[in-house]
């Protein structure tokens, strides 16, 4: 029984992490209709910035986390204004070619600057180890991930659904021309959203260094996972990718625990089954544009 709960806990933590990493992609792909395969590069940037600040500059881990978010968002906004903006109206193939090129450049750049070995972030002692709660082993670090990511998800959902900015964003996505006719500065809304998505990826990258491992190949290694989350979840809302991440996280952990021989395939099997059952993803719009 306790084994099930421990696995559930690990799965939720893993899923939450996937969600924070991938939800920026859900926003750019689903809301802005832009295929950004370089998403993982922003996650990697956040991770490396956090690692450098903590390991080399001696910053406390919790101070470096927000900075990972801010700097990834800053890189995001610079690239959006200078490069991405020109590709919004281009075909998806152009976008794919452009962003995959960007990914390779980021891999080579990080490899050159930081070396190709795996980087760890020195954690405060409070986050290390595991404690027992009614016999269930709870990893401190994973608990922190669940708390941070859970709060973020609620905040995101509230911002999108309840605030003025949220309604502007939805309007800008549904019909950019009408929205700008109503006085909404569409490019600004897009730029801000894009930067926010990159920031989330950066935060996710910093959080995942401990669990997924951070090296220059991060954007390529995990691109598939991000895409699975978005395709399975559907890209029309935040809830879809969120539930998809949880499902995949729990499925992956449980699969590796109970059927280790099949372990790595579980996540793909789940994707195939779900997509056969619902080709637009769990929460896809049935009548897509």
């Amino acid at each position, binding site marked *: 029984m306790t*084994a099930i709960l*421990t*696995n559930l806990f*690990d799965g939720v933590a*893993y899923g939450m992490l996937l969600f924070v990493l991938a939800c920026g992609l859900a926003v750019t792909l689903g809301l802005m209709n832009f295929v950004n395969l370089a998403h993982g590069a922003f996650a990697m940037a956040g991770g490396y910035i956090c690692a450098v600040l903590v390991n080399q500059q001696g910053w406390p881990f919790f101070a470096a986390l927000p900075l990972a978010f801010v700097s990834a968002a800053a890189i995001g906004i610079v690239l959006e204004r200078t490069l991405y903006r020109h590709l919004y109206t281009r075909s998806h193939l152009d976008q794919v070619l452009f962003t995959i090129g960007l990914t390779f450049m980021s891999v080579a750049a990080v*490899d050159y600057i930081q*070396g*190709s*070995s*795996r980087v*760890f972030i020195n954690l405060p002692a409070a986050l*290390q*180890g*595991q404690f027992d709660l009614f016999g269930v*082993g709870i*990893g401190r*670090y994973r608990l922190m991930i669940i708390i941070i990511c859970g709060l973020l998800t609620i905040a995101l959902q509230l911002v999108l659904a309840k605030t003025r900015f949220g309604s502007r964003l939805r309007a800008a996505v549904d019909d950019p021309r009408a929205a700008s006719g109503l006085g909404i500065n569409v490019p600004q809304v897009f730029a801000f959203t894009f930067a926010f998505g990159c920031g989330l990826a950066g935060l996710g990258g910093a959080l995942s260094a*401990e*669990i*997924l*491992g951070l*090296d220059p*190949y991060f954007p390529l*290694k*995990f691109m598939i996972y991000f895409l699975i989350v978005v395709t399975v979840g559907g890209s029309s809302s935040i809830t879809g990718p969120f539930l998809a991440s949880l499902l995949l996280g729990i499925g*992956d*952990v*449980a*699969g*590796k*625990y109970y059927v*280790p*021989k099949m*372990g*790595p395939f579980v996540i793909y099997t789940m994707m195939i089954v779900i997509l056969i059952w619902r080709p637009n993803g769990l929460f896809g719009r049935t009548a897509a544009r």
Partner: protein
Amino acid sequence: MFGRRRLSWVATLAAVAGLVAATAARAEDTVKVGLILPMTGGQASTGKQIENAIKLYMQQKGDTVAGKKVEIVVKDDAAIPDKTKTAAQELIVNDKVNFIAGFGVTPAALAAAPLATQAKIPEVVMAAGTSIITERSPYIVRTSFTLAQSSTIIGDWAVKNGIKKVATLTSDYAPGNDALNFFKEHFVAGGGEVVEEVKVPLANPDFAPFLQRMKDAKPDAIFVFVPAGQGGNFMKQYAERGLDKAGIKVIGPGDVTDDDLLNNMGDAVLGTVTAHLYSAAHPSQMNKDFVAAYKKAFGTRPGFMAVSGYDGIHLIYEALKKTNGDTDGTKLIEAMKGQKWESPRGPISIDPETRDIVQNIYIRKVEKVDGELYNVEFQTFEAVKDLGKTKK
């Protein structure tokens, strides 16, 4: 007049002949070693260490041997076998190298094997550790290790030292399977029991579920083989999951506690017992000098990959000395067979029958020495041959 013309004609001819001889002599004065290593990608630390060690050796011993100048040509294959093959072809055909050497992973060493056979030039394997490699070409010689060497020893050691139940966690590729099978064979034959067997995918992001399974199986120890670069991540998650506090020890071949990364793994790694060919803490004077020189030149500690590279280039030098500078591949490989020397890791030799390395395997425990983590050797198994050859 006629005589004079004839004389000048002879002189020209002689001059031309002299020129030809001179160029020929210049070409024969250099010996080229084509070094194919992963310098980028996940295995880059292996490539870096071997390259560093070779540089160090050539600084110490000079770059001429038996009247020949040794020249190293490095090619990066990023541990991808297709690239290894292309690199080997280029080196053999265009650069006309006399040796190919390096090879970070088993598939890379195997990809180059048919080329070594065809071109009849020695292939010096300085890293890859699967037993079958040296059987794939009569021109392959190895200065690193085989997983059978360390895995059988740790299997024997474990049963004799009170470890009865073991769970295994190995990377799912050739060396991992070698490590697992040889360990199991010896451990079970000695009366041990394998209670859980997990093969993890090579590109594995998260060990957590596998480790949880290990923990719930309640073994005395886990036998671990992961490629050198993943050891750090494994040990971190091992500690995070509290396996150290549950009294489950880590044993295995020494890849998991590679000197290259050991010092950053944290105190959870203390007490890990591994069997391996080399520790930077090996107490010989030769090793102390080697470690000091390596640290001075490159700022890091040498690992077992570095020492394999160091011995690899030594073997090339010795072979050239023995053939008196003759670069015929078949003569060179003959010269390598049966070579014996003192390496920083201890006494080693090349088995004349299998062209594989014979070396001491040490049982080591991770301890803190002067505030740094080291694999401290406490038991020696002398002159261990590779037990993993299929042709016996």
